[in-house]
């Protein structure tokens, strides 16, 4: 059971990091004016986006297989947000193929790509926020109605994640692109970083003011403070590398910040899966299901999946080549 908790956590984190940067690029895509820039931005993600998004499906099916109650409860509770997210993911997904098939209609797919990415990122942040605040659940079943997930705090988290993904995206662009796109991304990073910082402060104050249960965790578990420290160090290194234009560094540092934030959340939830109503223990599937998944998928295939991901990133390592960018 703990094995699947760990695999689930790794998958969600990988999803947030990997699809995070390509959703982020989608969010920034609308701001890029001309076709050359847009093409360069897309080229930085097009060989890997499909694999990135697959980690979302991985997280979904692990949840279903290993923690069916959580899958059933959360997905039905977030009915409308998930609908929005799926519509967003569909529109941005087809844009990769469709936009190169037309010129007159290209603006539609570009709008779909940018809008879809924005909506998907917002919904992901919002659902995470709603979870932190606590979903209305009685007798193990969601009881909040159609909009039970909605709150100012959730919306705030949605905006925060959009900023965060955009930051991750611009760091990826810095690493993969050259010329104008790289410069523009470098100029954008400080603004996004300050925006994100502001968001974090507001969330913190809000959580204090509302006396959210999550906050008590911090008093009970002082070792949690390790994560913000990691985050601050990573942020300092990132700032330094942005100033000195060291292309490879910012992405990894921002990824580290994300990982630290994710670690904070995961440990403040522990041992709950849906905070303060369903624990990991209660949610776990029967032993025969977990064992079946462990002895094949978990033990052998999961390392293979990581290997494929590494292979595909290493085949496409290095800068996107502007010289072969033509048709």
């Amino acid at each position, binding site marked *: 059971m703990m094995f699947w908790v760990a695999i689930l956590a790794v998958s969600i984190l990988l999803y947030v990091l990997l699809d995070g940067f390509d959703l982020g690029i989608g969010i920034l895509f609308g701001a890029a004016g001309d076709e050359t820039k847009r093409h360069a931005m897309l080229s930085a993600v097009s060989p890997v986006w499909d694999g990135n998004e697959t980690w979302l*499906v991985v997280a979904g099916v692990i949840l279903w297989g290993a923690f069916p109650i959580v899958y059933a409860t959360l997905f039905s509770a977030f009915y409308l947000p998930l609908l929005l997210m799926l519509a967003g993911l569909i529109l941005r997904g087809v844009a990769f193929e469709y936009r190169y098939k037309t010129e007159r209609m290209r603006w539609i797919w570009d709008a779909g790509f940018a809008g879809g990415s924005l909506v998907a990122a917002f919904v992901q942040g919002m659902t995470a926020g709603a979870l932190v605040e606590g979903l209305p659940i009685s007798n193990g079943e969601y009881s909040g*109605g159609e909009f039970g997930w909605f709150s100012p705090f959730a919306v705030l988290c949605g905006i925060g994640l959009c900023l965060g993904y955009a930051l991750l995206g611009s760091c990826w662009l810095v690493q993969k692109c050259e010329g104008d796109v790289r410069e523009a991304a470098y100029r954008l990073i400080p603004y996004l970083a300050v925006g994100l910082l502001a968001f974090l402060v507001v969330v913190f104050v809000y959580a204090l003011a509302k006396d959210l249960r999550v906050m008590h965790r911090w008093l009970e578990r002082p070792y949690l403070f390790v994560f913000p420290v990691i985050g601050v160090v990573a942020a300092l290194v990132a700032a330094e590398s942005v100033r000195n234009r060291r292309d490879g560094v910012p992405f990894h540092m921002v990824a580290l910040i994300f990982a630290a934030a994710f670690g904070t959340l995961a440990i403040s939830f522990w041992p709950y899966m849906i905070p303060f109503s369903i624990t990991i223990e209660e949610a776990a599937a029967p032993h025969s299901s977990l064992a079946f998944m462990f002895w094949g998928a978990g033990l052998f295939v999961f390392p293979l999946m990581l290997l*494929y991901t590494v292979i595909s990133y290493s085949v496409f390592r290095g800068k996107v080549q502007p010289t072969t960018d033509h048709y």
Partner: protein
Amino acid sequence: MDLSALLLSRLQFAFTVSFHIIFPSFTIGLAAWLTVLEALHLRTGRPAYRLVFEFWLKIFGVAFGLGVVSGIVMAFQFGTNWSVLARMSGPIQGPLLSYETFTAFFLEASFFGILLFGRPRVPPWFYLFSTAMVALGTTLSAFWIMANNSWMQVPVGYAIENGAFVPNDWLKILFSPVLWVRFPHMLLASYLTGAFCVAATGAWYVLRREFATEAGIMLRMGLYFAAVLLPAQGIFGHLNGEYVVDHQPSKMAAIEARWHDEKPASEVLLAWPDVENQRNLFAITLPPPLGSLIDSDSLSAGEVGLDSIPPQDRPPVIIPFFAFRIMVGCWLIMLLVAWGGSYLLHKGRFEQTRSLLWLTFLSFPLPFIATLTGWFTAEVGRQPWTVYRVLRTADAMTPFLTARMAMTSLIVFCAVYSFIFAFGTYYIYRLLHAGPQGRLVLPPATAIPNRPMSVVGEHRLTPAARHPAGGE
């Protein structure tokens, strides 16, 4: 519980899953064929194989993208609309779908990136390997989905504990005989879909007198493959019928519009089933014991009629009855086209026989229709159960789902899918129309004014750089 939310959720599931299956069934076949093409190209070095490969890879790209995005929806829908099913069957269906994601999706996603953009970056053998991995991925995906669905059709290897299905024998689940006739049936359907689309495209070019070499490759490979696969599909189709007779008598009775028990049974070829009065109008019927012979391979076997099934357990009749007959009809026409075409190809007279060329060209929808109607038969025939004889569809739905929410999502999915489907089909049509040597991709706007011709020229010289998204 809200009854109309149930109807809307069922409509939504039927719509999204039908939409989805069109693309995997096409890409599973196409991926296998692309592997063969790439292997032939590596072995013979004939540029035509490479050209045909590059051409179909683009079409594969569009269809694959549509399959991926519509597939993600499926992974969520069990939880959003069918939370009771998700909670109860999670311990069985969840691990099966996890295996699908783990073993198949990552193969597909990682190696497909290499297929599209990696040709200049990897050695030829690795490129072929990547193609084969994509094909393997699509096939594995089909296996796990069939394992999943077969368990819902004929649940085995489980016990019910605390209101959930707890698996107690995974070997039974994975080696269920039902799965092992249904999986080949689906796989063959996919290969036939690929083969007919390829052959139809070849026929189209022959009719237009264009791309003679490539059209010849498509026509030959497509029709020969199909001619061999179709009889095999007939056999597996029959074996599928046998599992239905053994395990799902209510579905068989609906497929055959058999209202009363018969021993030995007759066979209704065509009729208008009059559900209210439990009889068939305008029936064309073969006398006994042909019904028993077709359904049970026996001259004397008794066949179950709908009246011996409790009314609350009866499936709808009209949809399974007609869907099944349309599927078999498509198979017959495809057999005619494939065998006739192969014979004339063999004699070297095919390219002059315009009627058969037209027939081949127009036959491309048949495998899609056959796949869809086959699934309609299987899924509607299983009703009113979602897990056959254990969990009713009506009890599987998210209890607090309102009709308003279900209506919203149904409208959103219909709108988004129609939109992307319309454009996807149009773009595939344009790719097909342009053909393997045509100008396949519009260059970026900036490239047009100063050097339009050189763009086209580059295409001819370096096919690798022609992918829609342009390589890197």
